[in-house]
């Protein structure tokens, strides 16, 4: 088979076979970018059970879905997924490959790029078509968000990029059916050298900061684990996920999985509510892409107010209970 102009989106799945949100999100810019390159939008599903993700890919606008199904893909391993994707890329030769910048996506994409000897741009937050060169212009933050860089991969194929979850919105579902190719790939099980010993899901609420719609973050001003109970209660009342600043994590008030910022997660929710967060540049680097930022802080000089859309100068212990009550009151018909 010869090289195509197709744009591929790798649709990472949950253990139950449903697709992670970021893959469906990527089909939206994928459609827009596949057209000027003169190619099809292709979703790639590799899973133990591909039907749910195949169905979703079709609904969210893929022209073609290529699948590999097998029990070896029930739990993510670098080598099983890298082998399967390499097989597909070599066979079908897409022009572009996009992968969600999840933990597994960031594990898989660079491994694949080295195997395919091609360029990869990590953690993109903006995707454009560069008319002059006819390739994708991948834009990503660097230096903790202080600088944006636009990167081209002009001569190597596929041009690869990982894209942050939550940056793009899913398109409206369509009724058109995508063509489906169920590929057979004979995976060499001995090529999987790591062994999964155990999997521990975060016991309380799933800390899915990167796909959260609303994040309520506690910082140093929260003062302790008890303060986080208040933050958590408020977050739960508005359907939000709890985030934390580095100071709060290092003080041992909350696990690192909640940390937002340079040594934590990069997030871009619709609403970000920072409580008792000073707004150090490392923290801002991880949340400045949020749509709307709300700050609650006792210190009127706190840096967080310079990037907040809305703010209240006040004690979070006083503000949060009133805010919760007010929202509940306004929510009632």
């Amino acid at each position, binding site marked *: 088979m010869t090289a195509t102009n197709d744009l591929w989106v790798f649709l990472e799945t949950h253990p139950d076979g449903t697709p992670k949100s970021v893959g469906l999100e990527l089909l939206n810019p994928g459609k827009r970018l596949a057209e000027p390159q003169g190619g099809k939008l292709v979703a790639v599903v590799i899973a133990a059970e591909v039907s749910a993700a195949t169905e979703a890919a079709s609904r969210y606008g893929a022209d073609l879905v290529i699948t590999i199904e097998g029990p070896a893909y029930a739990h993510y391993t670098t080598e099983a997924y890298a082998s399967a994707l390499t097989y597909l890329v070599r066979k079908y030769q897409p022009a572009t490959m996009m992968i969600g910048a999840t933990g597994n996506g960031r594990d898989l994409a*660079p491994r694949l790029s080295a195997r395919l000897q091609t360029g990869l741009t990590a953690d993109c937050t903006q995707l454009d078509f560069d008319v002059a060169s006819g390739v994708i212009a991948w834009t990503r933050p660097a230096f903790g968000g202080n600088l944006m860089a636009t990167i081209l991969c002009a001569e190597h194929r596929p041009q690869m990029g990982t894209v942050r979850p939550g940056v793009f919105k899913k398109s409206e579902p369509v009724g058109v059916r995508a063509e489906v190719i169920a590929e057979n790939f004979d995976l060499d099980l001995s090529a999987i050298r790591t062994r999964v010993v155990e999997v521990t899901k975060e016991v309380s609420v799933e800390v899915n900061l990167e796909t959260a719609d609303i994040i309520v973050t506690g910082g140093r001003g929260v003062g302790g684990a008890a303060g986080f109970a208040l933050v958590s209660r408020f977050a739960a009342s508005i359907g939000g996920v709890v985030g934390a600043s580095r100071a709060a994590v290092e003080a041992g008030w909350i696990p690192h999985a909640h940390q937002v910022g340079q040594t934590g997660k990069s997030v871009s929710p619709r609403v970000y509510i920072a409580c008792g967060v000073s707004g150090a540049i490392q923290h801002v680097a991880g949340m400045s892409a949020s749509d709307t930022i709300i700050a609650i802080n006792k210190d009127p000089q706190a840096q967080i107010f310079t990037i907040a859309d809305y703010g209240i100068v006040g004690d979070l212990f006083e503000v949060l209970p*009133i805010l919760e009550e007010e929202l509940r009151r306004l929510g009632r018909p």
Partner: protein
Amino acid sequence: MSSTIPMTSPAPDGGGTCLNILVLVKQVPNTQAIKIDPETNTLIRDGVESILNPYDSYALEAATRLKDKLASIKISVLTMGPARADVVLRECMAISADAAYLVTDRRFGGSDTLATSYILSQAIRFVQAQEGRRFDLIFCGKQAIDGDTGQVGPQVAELLDLPQVTSGLACELAGDELLVVREMDDGTEKLALPLPGLVTFTKPNYSLRPPSARRKLAAKKLDITTISADDLEGIDRGRIGLKGSPTRVRKAYVPPAKTGGVIFSAQPIEESVRQLAQLLVDRDLVVNVEGDAP
């Protein structure tokens, strides 16, 4: 891996051959102090403090913790960068590293991540051949805080045909495997990594230990082996530097600064909170409040 390198079988019980660990490190500007030249949109590097990439420091601490339990472990550190990057190597030697390698050559300048990973993999092969033994484990940070790409670890693993674990939080030796706790988006998983293998580390709940005064002094006198392009026989010149890089930076710019927004300052504070709550509801920012959700 070259067939000329003897495959030592590691003996975590301390008998026989000792374990050989390589930590890949990078000297990075302290991003807290970063300033951008508004005229040229480039980073002002002058006067900006250089530090050991924090994620690499967690990798070094992980290796050092293994060595705490098994003193025979040898820790080497390797970096690619300008000559002045020797500072971070000495910093690592003041903590725990026994040997240090500086990969430096103007011909390596302008390398993107793939070219960098290729050079590093070639340098690692070179050191293994020189020393006549393999690295049983290669550790590095999951990403560097300047580029934030997180690509070099997995790419080096691929180019050396090693199994990999990324975003490691902690690890321990168990028989002839390394058990690594890997941070996932929604929890953790414990993976058994056969040796040789590569692990990248994320931020654990500890920091790198400070150097001891004795080691700090000793580190000043230790040798650093410099490796240039000419040392790396057989390196493909078409895969290094700017010319050998598949990606090219088209432009770099400073993201538009967000300007401060509306501060609700009505007194008493209840009034401000009420105004904020009203706005959140009016703009559909908060829709489903607990108890009212359908």
